[in-house]
């Protein structure tokens, strides 16, 4: 599989956010996007996810499932957690597993992986920010998709959780997946390539 980006240009609110970005990513590879606040890291991830229109440029995804969009083969973990406070931890994850996975997917392994299994019946309103983040990450574990787009994934996570996340990312890459992550600092992927988005 290969993700190819050619001359990506994006503007939001009339302001050009980034222009002429090129990169390619093979399976098993990770790309870390760095840059100052407001440089356009989040916009790049959202553009790959199909949530932001590109003013110019092309994205191609070879080797994935034919006939479906890039977005349908991608997981996007943004700044927001998409966790509903009035549902329990289990209900939240079960919903996303069914909606994104298209069938009944078991959620216990995913909850184990982020160490939220004992809280499965707790209403999500009682979770801390870090626990909500972990619930959000459990989504990408529960439903297998080749490309992960992670926007500052370690924010709100304590050190043990960051290590767990790094472990999950490593096994995803080993299994042939791809990761594009936006970060300010190291996130635990030693052999990731870096793409710096400079201010325009």
């Amino acid at each position: 599989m290969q993700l190819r980006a050619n001359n990506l240009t994006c503007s939001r609110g009339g302001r050009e956010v980034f222009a002429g970005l090129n990169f390619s990513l093979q399976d098993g590879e990770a790309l870390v996007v760095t840059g100052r606040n407001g440089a356009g890291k989040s916009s790049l991830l959202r553009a790959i996810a199909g949530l932001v229109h590109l003013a110019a440029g092309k994205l191609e995804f070879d080797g994935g499932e034919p006939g479906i969009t890039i977005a349908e083969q991608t997981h996007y973990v943004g700044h927001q957690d998409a966790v509903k406070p009035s549902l329990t931890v289990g209900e939240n994850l079960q919903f996303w597993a069914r909606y994104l996975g298209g069938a009944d997917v078991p959620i216990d392994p995913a909850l184990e992986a982020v160490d939220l299994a004992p809280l499965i019946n707790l209403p999500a309103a009682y979770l801390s920010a870090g626990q909500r983040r972990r619930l959000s990450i459990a989504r990408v574990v529960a439903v297998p998709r080749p490309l992960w787009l992670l926007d500052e994934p370690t924010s709100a996570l304590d050190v043990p959780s960051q290590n767990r996340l790094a472990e999950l990312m490593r096994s995803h890459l080993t299994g042939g997946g791809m990761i594009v992550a936006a970060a300010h600092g190291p996130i635990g992927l030693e052999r990731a390539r870096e793409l710096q988005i400079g201010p325009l």
Partner: protein
Amino acid sequence: MNAFVALLLRDIRLSVRVGGGALMGALFFLIVVTMMPFALGPDLNLLARIGPAILWLGALLATLLALDRLFAADHDDGSLDLLMMGGTPLELAVAAKAIAHWLTTALPLVVVSPVLGLMLNVELRAIGMVALTLLAGTPALTFIGLIGAALSVALRRGGLLLAVLVLPLTVPVLIFGVAAANAAIVGPAPFGPPFTILCALSLASLVLGPFAAAAALRFGLE
């Protein structure tokens, strides 16, 4: 269980658990209908004559105001992004949300309308017919309102904008709904034709609404 059903059930569950659920819409309906006689006077004959109109206007306002949060809540916590990235077409996802909304907001209105009809001195035999017109017409209100809800989220505006956008679109539904209800009470105009048109409007909006709403959401992507 497929994605459409999962989304439908989730939205029903959320509606029931958060913010008073079904009852808030019915309560608003009750309050609006109660307000009318204070403005019009307690003349029972007058109330009986315009009762169906009052019920329809109350149902329209109650449905509209509840639509405000339909997409806004998902947009605010990032769920809307993910809903657009599932394998399900956005049109179907939007339709699932609309059906859940109708079941939890509009259907209670239909159930409560006979009691309100009694308070407005509508004839007993006509109360059932008025409820039937509401049952047939509220899907149209929901699915047309869906478009406004999608537009107001796409434009990042709320509240009154939704009402301004949607109310003109619901004029046909209101006209035929009240006409059918009145025909049931007063005669001589037959009940059939306006009721059939009302059903047709609902069926048409079941298709047009989701397509327009999905387009509005996509248009709202930057």
